């Protein structure tokens, strides 16, 4: 695929970085560094580059081209693929999927909406779960995040302190948890003084 060329450029504009050169509109072989992975070379990218200091300004369409070229080589899952996999695995809600995968809800939502992309390793992991639904069901049954949250709440000295201070609420763990969520700092201060 040829790199797309925008209709407008900075050609001839004075460079403000060095104050001495001017921008040229040229094609370069761009090297994109990717964390925890080999760099990816994207050939023929249109950029504005200063003929004196090398300051480079990327047209939006070139950034889009770089991102899609990197995606071709690193194979991240797209939002549509993630949605399809989630539905095939029988998960109705995004927050449930994020819980099972051990992610923040917003992180998973950004991936499925296409605002951000999962890393290559996470994409491999989710593809493997899609390929082996029994592995996904095993993970789902563990419910690690949910259990860890409960365990932390049960063991927390703040909760123990709150139970001592609010015996009526302690008889109703659900209510105590709600109160704790909104008043945890207050309870913590009181507990520290006891």
């Amino acid at each position, binding site marked *: 695929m040829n790199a797309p060329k925008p209709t407008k450029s900075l050609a001839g504009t004075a460079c403000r970085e060095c104050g001495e050169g001017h921008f040229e509109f040229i094609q370069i072989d761009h090297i*994109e560094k990717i*964390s925890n992975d080999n760099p990816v070379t994207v050939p023929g990218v249109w950029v504005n580059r200063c003929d004196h200091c090398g300051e480079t*300004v*990327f*047209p939006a369409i070139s*950034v889009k081209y770089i*991102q899609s070229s990197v995606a071709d080589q690193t194979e991240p899952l797209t939002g549509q693929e993630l949605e399809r996999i989630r539905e095939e695995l029988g998960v109705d809600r995004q927050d449930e999927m994020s819980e099972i995968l051990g992610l923040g809800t917003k992180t998973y939502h950004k991936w499925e909406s296409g605002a*951000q*992309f999962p890393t290559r390793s996470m994409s491999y992991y989710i593809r493997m779960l899609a390929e082996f639904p029994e592995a996904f069901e095993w993970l789902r049954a563990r419910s690690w995040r949910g259990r860890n949250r409960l365990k932390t709440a049960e063991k927390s000295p703040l909760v123990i302190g709150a139970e001592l201070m609010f015996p009526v609420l302690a008889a109703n763990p659900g209510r105590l948890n709600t109160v704790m969520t909104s008043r945890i700092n207050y309870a913590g201060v009181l507990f520290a003084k006891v």
Partner: protein
Amino acid sequence: MEKCQYILERDLPSPATDEQLETILEALADPDNSVNFGHSAEKWLADTNTSEQELCGAIDRHIRAGRKVFRKFEKGSKTKLLPDDVQANVTIFNDEDDLYVSIWIQPGIIINIYAHEHPTGRHRLPQ
């Protein structure tokens, strides 16, 4: 985490003009041909796996919501304003830190977006 602090009102440059904001919105409506990204912005997009539409969309939303956009002082000056530069503290994702965005407006409706995370210890522009 250190609580962020904002630049005092008396030290702020004047707000961007309506004409500058109009030009930016017009460019953002046709990003493929009218928007450029400086090296810092391109690197931020790559490092955070964020699409360029998301950054353009966040700037568009920031302006349309009437949030603050300021002009920029010339380097080393606290009074002389650059004619074609504006800056803002833009929220890209609600659950993440804001991004410092600087825009250089070119004749012929091209905007050049520079963006980076806020350096530690530096005061931010109010939103």
